[in-house]
């Protein structure tokens, strides 16, 4: 029987990892990710899991260690945040290019500078072209569920890509909330055992990882990565379906909230979606036809799903918790480009909010909704919620 646990999001993720029981976890602390690897180190030292925990001296080493471990055929995980991800980044690309199904919770935090340890999505957006699959999760339940689903997806033979499970720093990672934890055996059976095609430890079938790959084959290997992303997109509905069977929780590329008859739609990721749902409820009571779209899968970007849900709406506002200096905000630019070919394009607005952990109130969300309700949107104007002029 599933049990209800009331813990922090970091503990929820650590419990998902405990149930998956990976062979190797590399641990390096960075706020606000630290409690994940702390809880996990506790499970290791208490003998609850038989994972080899590798305490390393930096995130660069953590990612290097997990690349080596995954190449040896071990089921491997690590976790990080913000500047830790930045320090990993060189090897983050390599993990994806070597096609190693590493799972990494990323506790979203502002990238310096100036120094800030609070939540925004600039770290995840920095890694968006690294070739990792990226999930975004609203709360404890989703962070737990997607960590389990990530393992299932990453290890599929036609995918073999690493996965980042993003959860909001402090808001999700440190906030205490209830979530439903599946039985250990159910999770173990769902993720199954990992039988890698290639292993550095298989001395009977020796392989080389990471050869020089100049102009003769590098291009072809990157084309393979693109194909793996396409396969991940095709496999995801199957993973969602299988997960629904064990949990009763139905997931999709996009979480749709009151969109069926909505003329005006907000697009926002992670924990802010909870606040936005509250505002949608308020506006609905006032008679406005508003709804919310929360992308759960960011890479591979669910372009077709966005087209289906946004085609023919009157107005769409996209909220980004990251900036892309000199360009359009990352989520907005992807939503906008997916609408290029739809029959009836909605008017569009781009809003940047919550940088560096700036509190995002219902009033701010309402401000963006009011702009769209009044037809006051300019597609090429980036606006700010909660910024002091």
């Amino acid at each position, binding site marked *: 029987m599933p049990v209800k646990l009331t813990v922090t999001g970091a503990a929820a993720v650590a419990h998902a990892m405990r149930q998956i029981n990976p062979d190797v976890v590399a641990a390096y602390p960075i706020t606000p990710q630290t409690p994940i690897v702390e809880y996990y180190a506790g499970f290791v030292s208490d003998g609850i899991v038989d994972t080899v925990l590798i305490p390393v001296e930096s995130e660069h080493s953590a990612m290097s260690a997990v690349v080596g471990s995954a190449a040896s055929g071990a089921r491997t995980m690590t976790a990080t945040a913000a500047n830790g991800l930045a320090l990993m980044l060189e090897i983050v690309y390599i993990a994806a290019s070597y096609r190693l199904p590493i799972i990494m919770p990323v506790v979203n935090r502002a990238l310096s500078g100036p120094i800030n340890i609070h939540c925004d999505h600039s770290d995840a957006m920095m890694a968006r072209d690294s070739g990792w699959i990226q999930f975004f999760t609203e709360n404890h339940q989703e962070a737990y569920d997607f960590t389990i689903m990530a393992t299932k997806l990453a290890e599929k033979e036609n995918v073999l890509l690493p996965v980042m499970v993003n959860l909001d720093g402090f808001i999700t990672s440190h906030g205490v909330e209830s979530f439903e934890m599946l039985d250990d055996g159910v999770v173990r059976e769902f993720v199954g055992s990992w039988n890698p095609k*290639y292993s550095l430890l298989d001395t009977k079938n020796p392989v080389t990882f990471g050869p020089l790959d100049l102009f003769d*084959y590098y291009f072809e290997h990157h084309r393979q990565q693109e194909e793996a992303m396409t396969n991940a997109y095709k496999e995801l509905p199957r993973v969602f379906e299988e997960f629904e069977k064990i949990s009763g929780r139905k997931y999709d590329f996009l979480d749709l909230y009151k969109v069926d008859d909505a003329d005006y739609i907000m697009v926002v990721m992670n924990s802010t979606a909870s606040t936005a749902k509250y505002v949608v409820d308020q506006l609905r009571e006032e008679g406005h036809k508003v709804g919310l779209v929360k992308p759960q899968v960011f890479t591979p970007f669910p372009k077709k799903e966005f087209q289906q849900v946004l085609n023919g709406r009157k107005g769409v506002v996209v909220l980004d918790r990251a900036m892309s200096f000199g360009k359009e905000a990352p989520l907005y630019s992807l939503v906008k480009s997916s609408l290029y070919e739809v029959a009836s394009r909605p008017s569009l607005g781009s809003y940047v909010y919550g940088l560096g952990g700036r509190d995002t109130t219902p009033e701010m969300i309402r401000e963006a909704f009011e702009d769209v309700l009044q037809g006051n949107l300019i597609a090429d104007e980036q606006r700010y919620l909660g910024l002091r002029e």
Partner: protein
Amino acid sequence: MKGWKDIPIGGVIDKPATAREYKTGEWRIQRPIINREKCTNCMQCWLYCPDMAIGGRLDGKKMKLGEVNLDYCKGCGVCAAVCPVNAIEMKPESEFI
């Protein structure tokens, strides 16, 4: 050359000792031509070749000049430059097409 569907993923090399199959001399624009009549088998070219493209063989107890392995010769011309009897001439690849 193989296409992206026909190669192992991630650049994995799935069998050992394949380095010999990696021909590194394809971009050569000059190749050494040895005049065997002038050659004294002093083996300076063999010694200086940075890629072991110039072969040697044992004839009794004495080393003798072998063949040039063009799969690995980059055409750098060091062999011709060090030859004390000018037995090696670098000729443009275009002459051999």
